[in-house]
């Protein structure tokens, strides 16, 4: 990982590690009122931030701003220590290639096979075919879809498409993962499969991530479970423990109204947070 400027390290905490992502007073607006208003937070190494909030409050916009797909009107966004807020599109591609992103509906390229979708970045980098096949098989095995290697996205179910999208995001061992409502519109069983994969990724590769969701059940499952490598399954943490590296953010009307862990979330006196949890 590259060295980051001191400005991104939290100076108040001695020996603090640099944040992978840091938002400082970010404002994003399109035509009309701002979608994000003065949002500030950070994501540390190995940290998973779950971004909660009802539909239409700017969760996806925030996620897209994280890797420069959307430019903020004001404020700074540091990605791997570099301020991307005013960076040119051409300079952003190299930084984006170090992140993995899972889109709401998967956003698979429908004219390409699963193999070519998962290997998209590797093909652009002209990695030899044998190596591509091996790495695609490995990524598909991680998401349990080895048999879809030569299929096209059109013949996959919604859940399978999300899992292929996760494989595509993971294939280049990204330094940051961004999940945009990965369980949105899926049935409970498939949702659990996807969350299990995300927990497996979190505990196995320990990649920092931001996960956008409006499903509290998914968020609580993530924080109360861990991946058991021996059983190759997600199991509850013992004695009501919670994952210390998985914390919450909550957006409402473009403002970040909560930033903390599960206990703080449950004990929050903010009327909107209470209403959302209920």
């Amino acid at each position, binding site marked *: 990982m590259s060295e980051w400027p001191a400005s991104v390290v939290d100076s108040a905490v001695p020996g603090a590690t640099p944040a992978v992502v840091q938002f400082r007073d970010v404002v994003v607006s399109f035509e009309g009122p701002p979608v994000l208003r003065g949002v500030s937070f950070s994501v540390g190494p190995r940290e998973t931030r779950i971004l909660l909030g009802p539909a239409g409050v700017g969760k996806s916009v925030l996620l*897209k701003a994280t*890797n420069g*797909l959307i430019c903020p009107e004001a404020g700074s966004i540091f990605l791997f220590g570099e301020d991307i807020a005013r960076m040119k*599109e*051409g300079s952003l*591609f*190299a930084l*984006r*290639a170090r*992140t993995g*992103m899972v*889109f*709401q*509906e998967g*956003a*698979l*390229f*429908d004219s390409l096979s699963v193999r070519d979708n998962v290997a*998209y*970045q590797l093909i*652009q980098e002209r990695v030899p075919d044998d190596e591509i096949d091996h790495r695609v098989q490995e990524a598909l095995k991680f998401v349990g879809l080895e048999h879809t290697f030569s299929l096209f996205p059109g013949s996959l179910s919604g859940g399978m498409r999300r899992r292929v999208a996760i494989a*595509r995001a993971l294939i280049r061992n990204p330094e940051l993962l*961004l999940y945009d409502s990965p369980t949105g519109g899926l049935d409970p069983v498939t949702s659990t499969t996807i969350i299990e994969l995300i927990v497996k990724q979190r505990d196995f590769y320990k990649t920092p991530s931001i996960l956008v969701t409006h499903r509290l059940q998914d968020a609580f499952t993530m924080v109360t479970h861990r991946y058991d490598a021996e059983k190759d399954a997600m199991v509850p943490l013992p004695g009501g423990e919670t994952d210390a590296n998985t914390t919450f953010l909550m957006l409402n009307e473009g403002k970040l109204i909560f930033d903390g862990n599960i206990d703080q979330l449950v004990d929050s006196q903010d009327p909107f947070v209470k209403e959302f949890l209920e």
Partner: protein
Amino acid sequence: MAFEKIDSTAKELVYTVQDYFLFSLRAVLNLFSRPVYWADMIIQSDIIGVGSATIVIFAGFFTGGVLAVQSAATLAAFGATAVTGRFVAMSMIRELGAVLTGIMVSGRNASSMASELGSMVVTEQIDAMRALGVDPIRKLVTPRIFACVTMLFFLTIVSDFCGILGGAAVTVFMNHQNGTQYFSMAYEFLQFPDILQGLVKPLLFGFLIASIGCFYGMRTTGGTQGVGRSTIQAVVWASVMIIFSDLLVSIVMVSIFSR
């Protein structure tokens, strides 16, 4: 109220033109820096060039035939049916070959570019491409512009050839004139400025078709309805700009060569 409407429409038009120029400039400049996606250029050349060949051959042939039918009737009044070949060849090479091919390719390819890229935009595939560290303009737009410019050039030559053949078929089989006379008249009176005019136009038309098609595709908003809107706008504007630029090129060429 009316002034506000005019003001906002004018501003939107200026912004659109500005966006289009910046978009086109970026797409063209991508040819001079790495990576250049040669494989995509070949695939697009096949789709645009080989895919449009049939309609261009038929359109060219029938247009040449129509020209021969119409001109023979008029020329007969002056006892000049012998110059039918000259009339058909001049019309096809200087004007109709390029414009008709442009319009045909625009209907087929500007629409497909706008709808294909538009669908990719609304299903977040373009964002996914950007998130994967690939420049969608470099990967999707530049190859289409390159392919359209080069293929329209060759398609126009095919169209010109087929048009002259169509004219010959009508002249020989319907008007019962001499085929050798038709071809010698078609060939003898052609000069360099005529050929130049006919071959400069497709380069410009090809650029307009692909850049307008991709531009409207890439700025699609509003789901599947938006894709339909983009497709219509792409075909309409590409066709209008082909005819408008044809007028400009003709004025410039005629003033330069006095022919």
